[in-house]
Each structure stands twice: as C-alpha cells, then as structure tokens.
C-alpha cells in the first residue's frame, strides 16, 4: 500500500508483543522481516534528568561505562570475550531521559545475550580502584567532545535556560562533577541500587525472533530480579518570566553560532502540542523552509540552519540554531529567525505545506527502518518516553490530524519572548 494514502495507517509496519513480568520488567518483541539478525536494546528510564542531587551530575552516563565492568560470573574479560566470540556489536548510550544498552547479533545467540545482560543488570560488581580508573575514561570522553564548539554551546544553553530542573546540565554532567567522580564510589553504589531495577527497565528485541520463546528466555534469566522502591523527586522548572541571553567566547577559529531556544512542553502523544511543534520545526527551519532558502541558498549568510523540537519526558527546549558566515551578520540572522517565529504565530501555514511535512515524516521512517538495528534504535526513543512502541503510532496519528491552526497555536503558546533564551558563540576573530 502506498505510504501517503489518504487513510492513515499505523506508522509501525510490524506488529509487536508487549509483556510485563511480575517484577515490573517489560519486554517488547518486534519480529521484523530482516533475516538472521537480532537487535536487543535494553532501555533504562534513567538519564541525566534523574541526577537531582547537587555534585552528582553525569552519573547516569557514568553507569553506561560501569555496566561493562563485569560480574562474578562474567568478569569483564569474559564478557568481552563472549561478545567477540559471537561476533556481536555491543555498545551503550545515554540521553537526558534514558540509558540504552544495545547488542546486535545472530539469532542463534539470543539466549547467550539475554543471559549475559540479565547477569550484569542484577550482579554488577566493580572495585573502588576500577571505579576510579573508569571515571578517568569519562573525563577522556569529555575531553574528546570538548574540541567542538557545539558541545560548549549546548552546555551554556542548558545552564542559562534552566534554573532548577536537571535539564540544566548536559548528559555528560558539569565538568567539576566529572572531575570529582573518582571520590564518589559510595554514591555510585547507591545510584545503581536505585535505578538499575526492573520497574525502570524495558527490553526491546527486534528482528528474526518470535515473541513466545523470547518471553520464556526473559522470564528465565530476568524473573528473579528484585523490584526497587526509589522514586526521584525531580524538581519542576519554575515558569520563566523574562528572556535570557548567554555568550561563549570560543578560544579557537570558528564561525559564529546563534541558538534561540524557547521553553517547550513535555512529550505528549494524546494532545497536539508535540506533533505541532515538530511540524513547526520543519515548516519554519528545515531545508525546504523559506528562511533556509533565503539565508542559506539565496543570501548565503548562513551555512547551517536547523530547528528541533525535542521529545523529552519533562518540558524542555524548542531550539533553532544557525551558523553564521560573518560575525557582522549575527544580529541580522537573529532578527530573521525571530521574525520567522512571529510570522508563524500570526498566519496559519498553507495546508499543502503541512501535507508535505506529513509525507516527509512518514517516508523518513520508512527509509530509516531498513534493518533490525535501526528499527530498534528508533523504537528505543519511544519506549523511553512511554514504555511502549504504541506511542509512536499515536504520535503519527497526531501528525495525520494536525491542522495549520494547530501549528499556529503551538507557535503562539510556546515560542514566547518570556520563555526565550538566546546564546551566541564567537571565536577570537568574531567578537560580538
């Protein structure tokens, strides 16, 4: 069936099964068309958002590292050896909302992978010396990221826009906290005890698998995992009552960067807000937006322009970023972005342009979902938000219903001057 057919079909082309174990662990199995390969993505609903205690930012990400330190049954060397022997690709990543451990492997190794993963989630063990050494690898990661001006821009944006909510720090954490990590062994044990629990965890298995046998394996290896009791009190961000600005003096050669951010609502699949702001980001700031064509293609004053409406668990930022070719044009570009925002607040967009965005979104998913690992990676983002792939179907149903007036209302409601933060970055030659 053609993807852009009038009657919207579910965006997910595969049926999935969802099962909850008595301990709170959830299993989502998605049999996909791609033979032989299986992708297991284990999503822990703990990210830098959960780092509520001062001095302890960056711990969700630190755990992404510590989880590879091994157990009594599978010490690190044996874990690595097993992963290598089965030819798996295994890694992990952390976001503000979740931590994801993922392995892609041949279908005959499903039991091996699920058993080994279950073991480390339940029996992780690391010495204080190993802990201290691993914190240095985290500092090494901060260091390798730090040569990009975008890393610094994001740090300053988060710190400027938020006062109380943990979105104030990036996933890496504040540098001073990373430098103090070697002294925080005991806190790390507490962090693991709180968050590495079945009620925080969803196992997503995608590819050449069947739901029944997968569930049996998960029950066998993960069934004895004990439910926890910790619930973080994540401070709500107070409403912003005036526009804010920040600036970064970058020590090396760079083109100036301008980010304009607005406080935006939490992810939602049962109201139009998220869908409307996503559509707005495309309509106003993507490659086929008027502003892009003006600033990037015709005037050639900007070489990079993008808008993003992040889907996060808590209210976060709608961001527009431009890289400006000449420092003298920073004010002009900022002005053009703000005028564009105003225009979208005043006049509903043509229905045909909204239709093009809808088509783009559906075809983009179809093009991306061309292998089991990518399907799992996309679904992991949704599972982190609502613990079910169904939320993706619901969001795309929202896109299908969206009207030009919905987009205008979202722009008026959220892209307000009061909730705005502008951060600029310039190099030694491009002072503001």
């Amino acid at each position: 069936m053609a993807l852009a057919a009038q009657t919207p079909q579910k965006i997910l082309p595969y049926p999935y099964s969802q099962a909850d174990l008595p301990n709170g662990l959830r299993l989502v199995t998605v049999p996909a068309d791609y033979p032989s390969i299986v992708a297991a993505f284990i999503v822990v609903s703990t990210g830098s958002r959960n780092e509520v205690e001062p001095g302890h930012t960056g711990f969700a990400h630190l755990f992404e590292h510590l989880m590879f330190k091994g157990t009594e049954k599978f010490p690190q060397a044996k874990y690595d050896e097993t992963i290598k022997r089965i030819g798996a690709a295994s890694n992990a990543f952390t976001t503000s909302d979740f931590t994801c451990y993922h392995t892609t492997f041949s279908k005959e190794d499903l039991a091996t992978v699920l058993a080994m993963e279950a073991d480390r989630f339940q029996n992780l063990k690391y010495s204080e010396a190993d802990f201290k050494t691993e914190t240095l690898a985290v500092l090494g990661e901060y260091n390798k990221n730090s040569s990009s001006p975008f890393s610094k821009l994001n740090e300053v944006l988060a710190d400027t826009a938020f006062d109380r909510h943990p979105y104030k720090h990036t996933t890496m954490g504040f540098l001073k906290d990373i430098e103090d990590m070697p002294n925080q062994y005991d806190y790390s044990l507490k962090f693991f005890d709180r968050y590495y629990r079945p009620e925080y965890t969803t196992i997503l298995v995608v590819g050449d698998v069947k739901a029944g046998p997968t569930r049996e394996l998960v029950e066998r290896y993960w069934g004895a995992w004990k439910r926890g009791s910790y619930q973080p009190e994540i401070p709500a961000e107070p409403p912003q009552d005036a526009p804010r600005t920040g600036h970064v003096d970058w020590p090396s050669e760079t083109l100036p960067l301008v980010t304009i951010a607005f406080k935006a609502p939490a992810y939602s699949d049962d109201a139009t807000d998220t869908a409307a702001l996503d559509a707005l980001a495309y309509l106003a700031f993507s490659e086929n937006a008027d502003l892009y064509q003006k600033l990037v293609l015709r005037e050639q004053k900007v070489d990079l322009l993008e808008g993003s409406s992040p889907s996060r668990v808590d209210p976060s930022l709608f961001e527009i970023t431009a890289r400006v070719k000449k420092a003298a044009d920073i004010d002009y570009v900022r002005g053009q972005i703000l005028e564009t925002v105003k225009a979208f607040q005043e006049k509903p967009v043509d229905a045909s342009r909204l239709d093009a965005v809808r088509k783009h979104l559906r075809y983009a998913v179809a093009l991306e979902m061309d292998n089991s690992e990518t399907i799992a990676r996309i679904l992991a983002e949704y599972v982190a938000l609502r613990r079910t792939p169904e939320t993706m179907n619901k969001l795309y149903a929202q896109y299908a219903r969206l009207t030009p007036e919905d987009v205008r209302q979202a722009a008026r409601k959220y892209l307000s001057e009061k909730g705005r933060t502008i951060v600029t970055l310039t190099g030694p030659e491009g002072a503001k």
Partner: protein
Amino acid sequence: MRLLLPWLLLVSSAPAQIRLLARPSPSPLVTFRIVFTTGSAVEPRAKAGLAYLTAMMLAGGGTRDMTYQQIVDAMFPMAASVSAQVDKEMCTFAGATHVDNLKEYYKLLRAMLLDPGWREDDFQRVRDDAINAIKVGLRSNDEELGKEVLYQNLFEGTPYGHYSGGTVGSLEKLTLDDVKQFYRTQYSQSHLILGIAGGYPGGFVESMKKDFRKLPAGAGFRPRMVPPPFIDATRVAIVEKNTRSVAFSIGFPIGVTRASPDYAALLLAASYLGQHRMSGGVLYDRMREKRGLNYGDYAYIEYFPYGMFLMEPPPNLARHFQIFQLWIRPVEPPAAMFALRLALHELDRFIKDGIPQDGFERTRDFLGKYVNVLTRTKGAELGYLIDSTYYGTANYVPALKASLARLTRDDVNRVIQRYLRVDRLAIVAVSKNGEELKRQLASGDPSPMTYNSPKPAEIAEEDKVVEKRPLHLRPEDIKVAPADQVFQ
C-alpha cells in the same frame, strides 16, 4: 585529460561497458549507490579539492532545468536526498527512495548526475561550505584533524599527498570552469559503477543503464598510482591549538589492500590489537581499562574517516595504498608523553610476542560473524560489492569469511613480522603548548605516570619500563605548526 599529472600513466584498459551491480529484492525501498572510480588522486596539488567540489556541485547544486531550491522542495516530501562522498580514487553518490516515489526521485537523481546546472551561485555556496568544512569543521575536531595530517605527511609528494577536501588556498582559487572540466573528463562510462538494490520494477535497470550511456565513453585507462615515499626515521608533527587535551595518530604505509593475499591475516592482527570502538582490544585494555588514560585506543589497516561518529567504516573508500594506524584518543596533557610511550610499547610487544592462540581464535570467530554486521543495510551491501568490483576480488563478505576460516595463528604472526614495525613512524599530535611538547619529546626525559587508585604490581612494573622508553627523536624531526595553517 589536461588535469592528469605526468606520473599517472596509462597502464590498463578499463571495461568499455558500464559496470552494473543490481540486487533486486521485495523491499518497498530502492537504494542507489553510484560510484565514479576517480577522485582527488587525479587532481594536481594546486587544485586540491577539485574532485570534492565537483561531486558537491552535483549533489548540492541545481540541474539545467531546476534550481537547487526546487530540487530540495521536490525531494522534501519524499524524505529523500542525494549524498556525495569523495576520496582518493572514488566519488560516490548515494540515495534511497520509497518505491512510491521511485519515478520522481530517479528523474531528479538522473538530472543531478547527468545534466548539472553549473550555476555560479551554487558554486559560491558549495565552495564556501568546503572552505568552512576545513576551517571550522576539521579544525574543530582534534582527532580527525590529526588523522588527516598523518595521511598527508605519509603520502607527501604523491597523488595521495593532499587532503581530499582540498586546502583553503586551493579552494579559494578553483573556478566553476575547473569543476566543469573535471566533470567532462572524469565522469565517464569507463569510470562508472552503478549499484541498485530493492524493489524496483522490471526494465528499470536497463533504462537506467541507457540513461548513463549519455556520459562520454571515457579514455579507457586507469592512473598508475605512485607508492608512498620511504620513511627513514620517525617524525612528529605537532598541530598546535587551544585545546584541553592531546590527540595522537600514529602510522606508516603498508603494502596491503583487500586485493592482497595477506589482507585477512593483517585485518585479524589489527582487530586483536584494537578493534574500532570496541572494548577488549589490547590497546583499549592496556590504555583505557587498566590505566584510564583516555576514552579509547584502536588500530586500523584501512582508511576510516570520521570514526568518532561511526561504528562501521563507510564503503567506497577503496585505495591502492593503505596505512597501518593507531588512533590514541585525547589524553590529559600531563599523561600525553606516557600515553605515547605506552602505545609504542604495546605495539612493540605485539610484534615481538605475536598473537596468542586464544586471542587468534577469538578474533577469527569474531570477525567471521561481525562481517555480517558491515553489510546489514542495502547501501552498505552495494558499497561492498562495488569495492570488490574495483579491487577485482570476490564479494567481500563471503571471501573474507573463507579466508578467515583458512587462517592459522602462524599466518597472522608471519604478517605481523612482515608488515608491522615500531620504528620509522609518522606521529601526529594535536595539542596546546606545542613547543613544550616538542621539548619533552626530544629530551628523552622519563615521563612517570601517577594514578588516582592503586595499581596491580604488574602494571606498576610495566610503567617503570614504559616511562623510560626511548623515543629516538631529534629536535629536527619534530615540527610544530599552528592549526590554522594546516590545510590552509
């Protein structure tokens, strides 16, 4: 062929027919991978970046009938695009579409590659982007910068001796006429390999082939490549910039490519020493896991750009000459000298001791399965097929599996002895305080390491040896250049 340099001699006839690799499948998607077997190796150094600009003009410029803006508008609802990748010997255009949009997408793709618009405003924008890709892209990425400087230094004076993205100076001088001429002379049927996969209808491939016959037949020759110059001593290039840490790349040319009988054995050796961005490699274990020196340390026998963003190497970077490379991720400045010494110590030990039997077996089993992961997308599957065609070898995945199955530990130890070395290296460091690093490197002073936790006796003992490891560097072997002069 005015652009060809005198050393690029006619050595063999290329096939007169367009080479086409088709992989039909019931997928709702159609994937294109179109490779011209030409690249930056045929451009003169003074015109560095010409192959790159030409490809970017095709993928990021208008056609005769449509402006680039109109192309972007037409592609947007399809969520489609055409991407370009340029290397020494290959220019690759890749794209995919849902079969719903195949007709419309292919019409755009065909016009972009066969009927370019050559507008001056597109050229200005594409050239600006290329200059900024060096000034603020490459120079803001210490690790990638170091790797590209390493390649440039190792191949100096040969067709590989300049960065495929060009230099700021050469890009500023290039004109639209240069680009048009490169297209006319290099984008020929004899250089073309068409790849297509997925659910395209019957007859589609034939009509596509017919369309591409519009290109000139081609001169029917391939350039003879010039091997890298002999290295008589280890030399260090320090790229100085204001940065938090020190990134190292270390390497030397090896006479091994996928077409070599020793490829599988050497790939296994490099994988054991440091499989790209995976734990368990020797370097990763000794440098990061045991000592916390940095985020990771790996070994390579093929070009792998932008490895910090990618888990698997992009296909269609086939080269006649490859290097062996160690990638030492950024190290805190006080530990930089020790990290460099430790990397060399581990390489030295690997050469002396060879690969242990269990490590050999484990790595062989790993690679035999991991190779499936490399081709899990249709684009990658086509890319590897195209590379095999270019190298004149059997299909990569089954051929590598067969070679691995035949390998013995002795084979691997033999290639380690034959190809690897710990002297006559090129070393690149991206660092602040370049002169101070130079002084330390030339002094031969010990660089003792301190840790934030107690280390086992084995590590402490080894450190005593490592901290004093002679580097045999004379001050004249160490050059310091500011980052803003690199690729300038």
